[in-house]
């Protein structure tokens, strides 16, 4: 019953999914934090940029963004992100697309986290003479991160699932393999169950762990 699986690189496909997710998660956390800093910062132009970025990017389908990284950035503008072969280029473009998209949600999750930090914290920090970078970096963001663990976990889980959209530019991850297997084998239910199981294994423990962590690190007020 499971014989046909030997012809397919199931683990390899899910490994690609994991790589896409991990690299994009790190990237979107960094870019998302910068965007959040811009949105709450003192420079009006950066605030406007942050707001515009978030409002535009989260309203475009991820599919369109990822197709754009390939058709626009790579095929037209000639950006290949330092790679030479098609597979690596597409993988990196997909990571870039996922970062551009996910960071807007990271930004919003962090901003809601920043809003949970009591005003007194920032006021006290300013009273002892800290400047904006210090107020944000030393006092507000550390607390904001702790209360945004759960919303950020939701963004991460959505990101893991969104890696399947990389299928649109042919990155060989789990959804591409699923399509290929369904076309070649008459085992629809079994194949779907296996792929679904793979994603449950990736997302469920992540959600449970981060949910637990969120409760553990939450600032008691």
């Amino acid at each position, binding site marked *: 019953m499971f014989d046909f699986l030997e012809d397919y690189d199931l683990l390899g496909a899910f490994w690609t999914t994991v790589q896409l997710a991990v690299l994009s998660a790190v990237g979107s956390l960094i870019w998302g934090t910068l965007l959040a800093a811009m949105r709450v910062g003192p420079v009006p132009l950066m605030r406007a940029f942050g707001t515009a970025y978030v409002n535009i990017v989260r309203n475009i389908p991820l599919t369109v963004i990822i*197709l754009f990284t*390939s*058709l626009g950035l*790579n*095929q*037209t503008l*000639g950006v*290949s992100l330092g790679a030479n*072969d*098609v*597979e690596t280029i*597409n993988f990196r473009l997909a990571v870039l697309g996922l970062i551009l998209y996910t960071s807007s949600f990271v930004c919003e999750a962090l901003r809601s986290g920043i809003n949970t930090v009591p005003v007194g914290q920032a006021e006290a920090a300013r009273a002892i003479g800290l400047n904006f970078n210090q107020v944000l970096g030393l006092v507000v963001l550390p607390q904001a991160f702790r209360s945004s663990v759960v919303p950020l976990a939701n963004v991460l889980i959505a990101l893991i699932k969104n890696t399947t959209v990389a299928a*649109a*530019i*042919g990155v060989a991850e789990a959804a591409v393999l699923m399509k290929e297997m369904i*076309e070649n084998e008459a085992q629809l239910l079994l194949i779907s169950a296996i792929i679904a199981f793979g994603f449950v294994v990736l997302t469920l423990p992540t959600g449970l762990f981060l949910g637990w962590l969120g409760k553990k690190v939450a600032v008691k007020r």
Partner: protein
Amino acid sequence: MKLRKVTAASATVFALALTATACGGDNNEGGGSGSGDGKTITVGIKFDQPGLGQKTPQGYAGFDVDVATYVAKKLGYNEDQIEWKEAKSADRETMLQRGDVDFIAATYSITPERQEKVDFAGPYLLAHQDVLVRADDNKIKSPEDLNNAKLCSVTGSTSAQNVKDKLAPKAQLQPYPTYSACLPGLQNGAVDALTTDDSILAGYAAQSQFKGKFKLGGFKLTNENYGIGVKKGSDLKDKINDALEAMVADKAWQEAVDKNLGPANYKNEPAPKIGDIKS
């Protein structure tokens, strides 16, 4: 409390109205009617292949469309009695088996596997798998030169995989949802070649924006015998064969080739004899 119920109710009404209008837009109540009752005939074609079958603001255009129109005329249907349907590659056999369409002219190559499921009239065109490269690119002279080259094709197409499996194992494949997405990359050098049937490639190269920018490799990698697919056992097969013979005889066939594929300097094979399937 009352007010809130009204809000909820109006939201529901709004949502329902939205679907009603959204659904109202299209009513292609399909179902291939049997032939000859003087009403309409349903024909499957491609919608996104310039030169062969392309949806345009003025209707449908291309070689397959011209052939289908001619055939339908011989079967007793005027142009306005034809209902065009999009026949995507993967759906063609099912559409015929279920009777969604009466016949299909959509770059439909006759193969033994397909002949088990459907019947074919024709062939009406002999095409070959080929590559499209930049006009100034002299590196790709034989199929083996495709090694290490970046080869663009559409998702799920077998032609690119064939090249990789049989001729150039080191070729890199770039899949896109449609062939037209490959063209900017080919023009800019992000991919080196686009591979599929030469008739399809010629259709793209013939577009005015690309005149002189691309050329066909002329490799003749395979023989693709385009046939008109009909339901297994259908009596349409013989009638369509007669129509195709008539089309070649009264020069309408060559006119259609010249009109749709000519601008790309596509050197077509002579009209194939009915039933002469080159393997």
